[in-house]
């Protein structure tokens, strides 16, 4: 089994988690705890790798119900931070159900879409219907960022599952119609974030401050960075949420453009490895699972880095494996472990037609 692992993915995940701990340490956050999260995440990774992912398809409805239960519980007994109710306290540890819901939704959608070969309009609507309850519960926390991530995960999986262009265009059309209504639906602070994103200079010391300081931090890193633990903006506390939402700014200030490109490349290679897992998956469930994990990680990386460098509006999305936080770190590592579970159970070598004929290997049907 070890021999069939995607070793590159293991190394990339370990390297990213290591960089994460280094950055969290530099950002003066609770780094021993982050190490604990990584260790727990590694355990989840190993467990997920060993576990046969195919068994998850059958318990998907139960997982979905558990996810909704947790999200409802957040509203009833959750702890709030920064104006939003997001946390559950489990045996003294903070648990963020919206983080876990990202992965559970990937599992549920993969199980759902795996049952049908083609994505009919009915199936497409069914996928959106699965998204609706958790999306509502998360947006009501309020956590617009995570809502956008799970919406993107749903659409991405529908696409990878074979949704027709017309179906995706329909969603785009509905969004385009709904967009003018958006300002009314947004909370005051969310609307403000959007306005500030559109014009960060309008209030440089107020709401635009976070964005501006993050940009200054990133820019001041220059080509080579100020060096680990030698950032100015991050070390001296000018970067807000320097270990979580704006961890990339802390990283980019200390490691510079070269370090940032290494980080982006690592994420890029990791993402390609995850897609590769989809391409070798032995079944449609595994393929969709890997595809969903790809979208989940990709959207978070893009949203987090994008907001740190001022390309996207501020939304509280962690940078996978880098940001401080237990739920997100463990969820991401568990997802990557599931990908390994898919990989080690991949279908056999597929030879070119000529070779296959010559060698007379088993037909693809035998795999199923």
């Amino acid at each position: 089994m070890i021999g069939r692992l995607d070793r590159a993915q293991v190394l990339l995940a370990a390297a990213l988690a290591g960089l994460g701990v280094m950055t969290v340490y530099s950002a003066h956050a609770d780094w021993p705890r982050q190490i604990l999260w990584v260790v727990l995440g590694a355990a989840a990774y190993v467990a997920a790798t060993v576990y046969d992912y195919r068994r998850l398809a059958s318990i998907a409805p139960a997982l979905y119900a558990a996810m909704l239960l947790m999200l409802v519980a957040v509203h009833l007994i959750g702890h709030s931070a920064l104006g939003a109710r997001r946390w559950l306290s489990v045996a003294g540890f903070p648990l963020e159900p919206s983080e876990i819901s990202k992965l559970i939704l990937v599992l549920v959608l993969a199980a759902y879409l795996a049952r049908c070969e083609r994505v009919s309009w009915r199936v497409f609507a069914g996928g959106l219907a699965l998204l609706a309850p958790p999306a509502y519960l998360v947006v009501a926390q309020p956590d617009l960022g995570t809502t956008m991530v799970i919406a993107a995960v749903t659409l991405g999986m529908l696409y990878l599952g074979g949704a027709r262009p017309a179906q995706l265009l329909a969603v785009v059309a509905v969004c385009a119609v709904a967009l003018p209504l958006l300002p009314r639906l947004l909370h005051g602070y969310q609307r403000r974030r959007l306005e500030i994103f559109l014009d960060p200079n309008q209030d440089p010391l107020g709401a635009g401050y976070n964005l501006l300081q993050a940009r200054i931090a990133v820019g001041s890193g220059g080509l080579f960075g100020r060096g680990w633990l030698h950032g100015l903006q991050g070390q001296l506390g000018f970067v807000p949420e320097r270990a979580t939402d704006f961890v990339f700014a802390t990283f980019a200030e200390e490691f510079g453009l070269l370090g940032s490109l290494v980080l982006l490349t690592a994420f890029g290679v990791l993402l390609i490895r995850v897609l590769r897992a989809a391409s070798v998956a032995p079944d449609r469930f595994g393929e969709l699972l890997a595809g969903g994990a790809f979208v989940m990680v990709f959207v978070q990386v893009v949203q987090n880095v994008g907001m740190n460098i001022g390309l996207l509006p501020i939304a509280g999305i962690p940078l996978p494996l880098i940001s401080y936080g237990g739920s997100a770190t463990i969820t991401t590592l568990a997802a990557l472990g599931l990908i390994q579970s898919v990989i080690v159970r991949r279908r056999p070598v597929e030879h070119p037609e000529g070779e296959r004929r010559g060698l007379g290997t088993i037909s693809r049907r035998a795999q199923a």
Partner: protein
Amino acid sequence: MTSWGPLVTLGGAAPRPRWSLRLTAAATGAVLVLGVLAVKLAQLQVTDGSRLAAMAESNTVHHMVLEADRGIIYDRHGAPLVENSPIWTLVVVPAGLPAAASDRAQELVTLSRLTGTAEPKLAAALLTANPYSPVNVMNGLTQTQELAINERLPDLPGASLVQHSVRTYREPLVFGHVLGYVGPIDPSDATRLRDAGYQPNEMIGKVGVEAGLETLLRGRNGWEDVQVDARGQVVRVIASQPSVPGDAVYLSIDASLQRATAGSLAAGLARDGKIAGASIVVDPTTGEVLALVSLPGYDTNLFTHGISQADYNRLLNDPDRPLLNRAIAGQYAPGSTFKMVTATAGLQEGKITAQTLLNCPPYINVGGWIYHNWASYSLGWMNVAKALATSCDTFFYQVAAMVGDVTLARYARAYGFGTAKEIEMPGVMAGLVPDRIWKQVQCGVPDLNSDACRWSEGDTITFGIGQSYLLTTPLNQAMYAAALANGGRVLRPTLVHVVLDASGRTVLAQKTEVTSTVPASAGTIQAVREGMREEINPPYNMNYWFRRSGVPADGGGKTGTAQYGGSGLDLPTHAWFIFFAPYAQPELALSVFVERGELSEVEAAPIGVDIMKFYRGNVSMIRSGGQ
């Protein structure tokens, strides 16, 4: 695990990925999007890198000005007249306040109680400010308040105490008009003095010696480049240059004589129900001012400790005008004290000699106008010395008429009348020496032959007794007395004995400067001095004050009761007394001015005699080495 049995039988050969079109599209899209991020990153970190790095530096590196200690002002013997006392300001960096709303509210309540500022006002001030700059919450904390707040600081995140020093004047009612005070620099001065490195709101000398010697007292500010965190806490000092304290100024003032002068003047004013006056004591050999008093005084500490608008308005609108330094800026007719000028002109121009006898009738008639003597009876024939001693007006009317206004004005100017003295404080007034050209220029009437514009014979003869349009200041009078004492040299008055820098080197030392010499022979001056000597000796009444005080009448004096506010009889008057002593080798010259004084011999002269008495009793101390 049973399901991967068939896979294992393949012997672990490398699987070949089966990339569907959608997976390829997703991979391509991901790479493209990450590429966009990389391009934007390169733009931020390379193209804008240095600009943003500079912004990071300015965020985190603060240039702090280290204010120099202002120089201390001492009297000539080294007694400090002002000190820099510490004062504290409570500042709060809003970003340093607790993050939790309830803790923050609790801290605001505590701050509100400590400062006495209403909580909503405090909250508004803190929340509207730049969250990373300190906000002044309470200025001018005393040591007791500082101690009380300092105890609470550990429970008040974001709050800190900043120390400044503030000028505290000793005996401001005695020394106030000499020292003046400092105050925050005016915006207009701040612009003008920007090159000198003044910070907005920096304290600068406003009046008195504080203003006159500003450049010496100020010192040189230092600076410190410090790294601060987002809460405004200093993390480390990057570079610094210490400040250089201002120079120590030893005034020519003798503190004990200043106190005695202020005391004598205050007592004399009180005795006669008067409120305002001035007195200046100078050394007639050097021009050093030993005492300079203007009454009423005011508490200069009010200005340095942050004066309230009510207090300021009260001082500004006080009818007794305590803010006016009458010693240097009060302009009044000299009256009979001017007669030595007329005498000098008459003698030197050959119109009279020391022996010439002129009649002293109760009045004379000039051009149909009657000009009275102070006495309603004839004092008979007299020479110039007796005319000075008796202060006969009609004698000097005649001399003035003989000399003429132009010549008289020339002698007045030679004695220093009409010139603003260059003393080490701003606001010195010149007084006025009138002549016919001045009258035509100032009259403002188109008809130059009207009474307002044309110089009359009456103008000349009243000029001769220190009236007409003549104005002088108590300081000019003291220097005039000094010139009569030293034989006709008009000295530049100075308040500086010596100025030492921080390392004890002499920056500035008193230097005697003669600004003009009276164009008169020794004999002329001698004749005039003789008149002043006679005035304070028997048989004249003035001698009474000397006898009463036990002070030998060894010197020369002259009183003057000057009318003001127009022309005619029964006008209000000011009282003057100028004096020098001893007669042979004068050590001291002084002027005494009593605003609205009615009889100079009774109101002004005793004050001068009192001052002289203190001087004689303490001469060895006053004249001891000093600094």
